[in-house]
């Protein structure tokens, strides 16, 4: 019973610490100007200083810009499509529930998923609504920089393909902890691996929940709370009743829908351009609205520079990604982070052999690369056919670009075709959210139930019935915690959470995973120091980085606007209605935020990079290597032959169903 008590208290501690980590930011964030829609968790640009436009006298745009401020899907059709998706997925759950009797069924679908199915499921697990909506938005507003941004998530599968997928299939069972504890002192290693898995998965999960809540709020016109709870209940239902089998099929269905939607949108964009990409880009460069957008909103040139091709500038880098080190640092997080994400890792245990694992990651990589490539056609198509002005008037971050484009290409707002296509794309986004959050809940609960409860508390001596029961209870608790945290984090800057999840995966999980598989001298001390130092460094750096909210900086920005407008007033000119509104808002922002500090008590960021990968990943590696060298462990070194032979050849492979 002491074991049970320990288990419960550990869980409470994990829960509370995550809650605490999320809580204190609250008051600080309420003053942020970009509380509109943060659905694009990965790609959402940090609040752009839109204010600067007001500070300079800007020549009125020459071209008429269509005004719009909301996406209005046809409620009946949209809810109908959501209903169809819910009905199909619940059917899958009922089917899967009957077949889920052992721990291996619950965590790894009994090892009976084929390479092809798993490939689609991995893609479904990985491609988020943030990429689908946020990245095309980014491209539609910032041009080629958005496309450059899309390379990272596509490239991130290379490390999984080459050094993670097959070795992990051969050496592991259900979780990250299984691989890391192979030749080390199992209990401390599993405990730390579980903490790291839960941290990564929960942060990612909260970001997804908040994004989902905001998106559903816009699409269905329902309150934020209702949408978070609704998504949460479905997600918990899939995982608790259907385990990995249901999750896999939800992910496959989602990936199929997402790819159909993406291919269809890209096809229609190309059809409009006569299937000639050069025509599409020539039209983009020649679009007067895009030229105005680049000149006025991005480059802030009040008067056009003689002979400068503002349209061509849209196809040149530097409009969004301004700090090269930030880009490289984010690149490190992509290159190593995806390979350290527990919910992706877990998918490789569902296939029967390394050969199938290879097949699945190759298929996933094809789907993933095509998706992130096609996004660029959608993004540029949106810029051309909708105009950046319209897209940003609906949502500052551009998150609604894909949806608006679907409506337009379907036949326009109000037409039946437009309504249907928009509703379909909304449904795709909905399915996307469900698939990603389910995978995350499963990964987090596997770490708690399998690593902590079964292997630490019960010493691995738990029968199948108990294991499944515990796994279900844990999933329920994880799911409910995610809903609660999602509700509390409504006003949070969730971009920070995603940065955090990827950076912890790249700096904590990835180094110890790769060293466990490939380095003879690696051992218990190495795993512990690598995971702890990597994770804590990452958390620390993100807390003092520019992704946090700094009220003083908001106040300073507001002050600039106030000064500019007051100078104008003092100069004798009368402010128009719009300017007066801006002035009023700036004064309110200034009052609210002046003298305020971030949750770390800072007035400005201490660490210059938005993503800490460039610094934290090397620190994670060094800590892991130093830890292993300082505390040599003969047993771990002797057992290296075993893990190496297993991971290279697959000899002695423990099929998930043998357990």
């Amino acid at each position: 019973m002491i074991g049970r008590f320990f288990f419960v208290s550990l869980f409470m501690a994990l829960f509370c610490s995550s809650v605490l980590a999320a809580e204190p930011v609250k008051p600080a964030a309420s003053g942020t100007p970009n509380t509109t829609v943060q659905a694009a968790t990965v790609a959402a640009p940090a609040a752009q200083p839109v204010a600067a436009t007001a500070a300079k006298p800007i020549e009125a745009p020459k071209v008429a810009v269509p005004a719009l401020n909301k996406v209005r899907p046809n409620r009946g059709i949209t809810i109908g499509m959501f209903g169809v998706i819910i009905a199909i997925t619940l059917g899958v759950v009922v089917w899967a529930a009957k077949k889920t009797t052992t721990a291996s069924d619950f965590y790894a679908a009994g090892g009976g998923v084929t390479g092809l199915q798993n490939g689609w499921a991995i893609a479904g697990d990985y491609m988020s609504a943030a990429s689908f909506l946020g990245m095309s938005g980014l491209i539609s507003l910032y041009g080629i920089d958005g496309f450059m941004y899309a390379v990272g998530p596509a490239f991130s599968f290379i490390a999984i393909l080459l050094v993670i997928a097959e070795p992990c299939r051969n050496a592991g069972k259900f979780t990250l902890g299984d691989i890391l504890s192979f030749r080390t002192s199992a209990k401390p290693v599993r405990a730390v691996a579980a903490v790291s898995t839960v941290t990564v998965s929960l942060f990612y999960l909260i970001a997804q929940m908040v994004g989902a809540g905001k998106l559903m709020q816009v699409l269905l016109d329902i309150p934020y709370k209702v949408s978070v709870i609704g998504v949460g209940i479905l997600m918990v239902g899939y995982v608790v009743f259907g385990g990995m089998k249901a999750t896999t099929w939800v992910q496959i269905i989602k990936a199929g829908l997402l790819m159909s939607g993406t291919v269809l949108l890209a096809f229609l964009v190309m059809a409009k351009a006569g299937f000639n990409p050069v025509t599409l880009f020539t039209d983009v460069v020649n679009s007067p609205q895009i030229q105005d957008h680049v000149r006025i909103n991005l480059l802030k040139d009040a008067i056009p520079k003689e002979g400068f091709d503002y349209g061509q500038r849209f196809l040149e880098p530097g409009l969004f990604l301004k700090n090269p080190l930030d880009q490289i640092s984010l690149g490190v997080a992509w290159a190593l982070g995806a390979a350290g994400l527990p919910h992706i890792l877990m998918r490789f245990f569902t296939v029967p052999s390394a050969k199938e694992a290879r097949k699945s990651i190759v298929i996933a990589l094809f789907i993933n690369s095509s998706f992130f490539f096609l996004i660029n056609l959608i993004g540029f198509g949106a810029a051309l056919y909708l105009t950046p002005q319209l897209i940003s008037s609906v949502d500052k971050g551009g998150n609604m670009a894909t949806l608006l484009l679907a409506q337009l290409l379907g036949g326009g707002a109000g037409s039946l075709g437009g309504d249907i296509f928009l509703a379909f794309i909304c449904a795709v986004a909905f399915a996307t959210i469900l698939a990603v959050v389910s995978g995350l809940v499963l990964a987090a609960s596997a770490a708690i139930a399998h690593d902590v409860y079964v292997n630490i508390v019960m010493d691995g001596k738990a029968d199948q019935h108990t294991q499944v029961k515990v796994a279900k209870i844990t999933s329920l608790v994880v799911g409910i915690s995610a809903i609660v945290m999602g509700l509390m984090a409504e006003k949070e800057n969730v971009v920070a959470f995603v940065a955090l999840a990827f950076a912890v995966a790249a700096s904590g999980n990835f180094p110890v995973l790769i060293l466990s598989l490939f380095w003879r001298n690696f051992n218990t001390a190495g795993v512990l120091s690598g995971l702890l130092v990597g994770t804590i460094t990452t958390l620390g750096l993100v807390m003092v980085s520019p992704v946090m909210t700094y009220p003083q900086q908001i106040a300073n920005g507001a002050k600039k606007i106030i000064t500019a407008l007051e100078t104008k007033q003092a100069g004798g000119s009368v402010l128009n209605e719009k300017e007066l509104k801006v002035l009023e808002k700036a004064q309110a922002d200034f009052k609210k935020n002046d003298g305020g500090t971030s949750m770390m008590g800072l007035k400005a960021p201490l660490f210059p990079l938005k993503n800490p990968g460039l610094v934290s990943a090397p620190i994670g590696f060094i800590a892991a290597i130093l830890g292993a060298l300082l505390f040599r462990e003969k047993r771990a070194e002797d057992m290296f032959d075993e893990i190496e032979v297993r991971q290279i050849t697959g000899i002695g492979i423990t099929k998930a169903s043998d357990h």
Partner: protein
Amino acid sequence: MSEQTYDWSSIAKHPKYLELKQKKRTFLFSWWIGSTIYYFLLSLLSAYAPSLFKVKMIGVVNFGYLFILSQFVMCIVVALVYTKVANNQFDRLTDELTQSLQKEGAI
């Protein structure tokens, strides 16, 4: 952890195993490092050689766009090459190793 126990260290000294290990390591790490360098060239060139990215190649489509495009192509090429090498070479060597181990009664 291990339900089946073999003499792992003697398998680890098997000449066929050593050949497989050597080939796999060389292939995987060189392609991994190579593709990573190519990937980081994107951030580096766009930041430190922006004029290169602006060179128009096909109509208005510039070098930058094509270079980004090539990154996606690179990912797919790596996957294809790896599949080919793994299916032809690594799987064959693994089969040969398992067969010879079975003959020797080691597994």
